[in-house]
């Protein structure tokens, strides 16, 4: 493993930033969730890389990656259910048009 840890971290940072960009710039609510998934994966890359590079005997990194999986699954299930529910009522999934809380 001749790759320095910083490469993984930079990759994760880049993935995180791309995901953040997606979250902030996409119109479609589903696309926003896609961005969130990218961000969660960036976190997971960090967790696993730290596990491998710093302390492989301690499984904390992998365990929390597993927990992030669970959280991601929960988040997608609830998020998509909400989006579908909103779509049924308002016939739109554009985040900017879901502005009942306006003013």
């Amino acid at each position, binding site marked *: *493993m*001749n*790759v*320095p*840890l*910083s490469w*993984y*971290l*930079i990759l994760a*940072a*880049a*993935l*995180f*930033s*791309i*995901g*953040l*960009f*997606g*979250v*902030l*710039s*996409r*119109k*479609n609510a*589903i*696309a926003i*969730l*896609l961005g969130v*998934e*990218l961000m969660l*994966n960036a976190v*997971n890359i960090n967790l*696993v*890389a730290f*596990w*491998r*590079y710093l302390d*492989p*005997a301690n*499984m*904390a990194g*992998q*365990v929390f990656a*597993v927990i992030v*999986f*669970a*959280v*991601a699954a*929960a*988040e*997608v*299930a609830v998020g*998509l*259910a909400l*989006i*579908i*529910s909103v*779509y*049924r009522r308002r016939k739109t999934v554009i985040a900017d048009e879901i502005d009942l809380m306006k003013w």
Partner: protein
Amino acid sequence: MTVDRIIFLVPAALILGSAVMVVITRKLIHAALWLVAALFGVAILYAILQASFLAVVQVVVYIGAIAILFIFAVMLTRREMLDKGAQTRSNWWLPALLGLLILVGLVFLIIGQPAFGQPAAALPAGLDALRSLGTALVSPDAFVLPFEVASVLLLAALVGAVYIATGNKE
């Protein structure tokens, strides 16, 4: 430039390229499929990092469940096949700037840490990562509580999602 580095760079390029496509592509289905590609790249990274269990679970959970859910949701929330018009907000440059700033800041901080420049040591001999992960998840001395909390969270999300998506049946 050793083989190791090439083996890292190929999936890394796949991940970043796919991730960029996820956020800029116009067709939402394509975005979801690019997400699959990006997540597959992450699975490859896990395999490179010798976290074989996570690699396979990544494929099972993300591609087998989450991506499929996304595609379903995309299909269920439209009346026509194609996405028309701009898919990004008009002031997309601000998020781009923010993302860039965060990236630059993080890279700056990461490079500033000499400890992060080290290559990884070999895994300790006799470490069965799969077995010790399993033990860690259910051992009371380790992470059984977070693990149980996560399972309760999943159950709650399951019930909540079913309730929300069912809607009120009069």
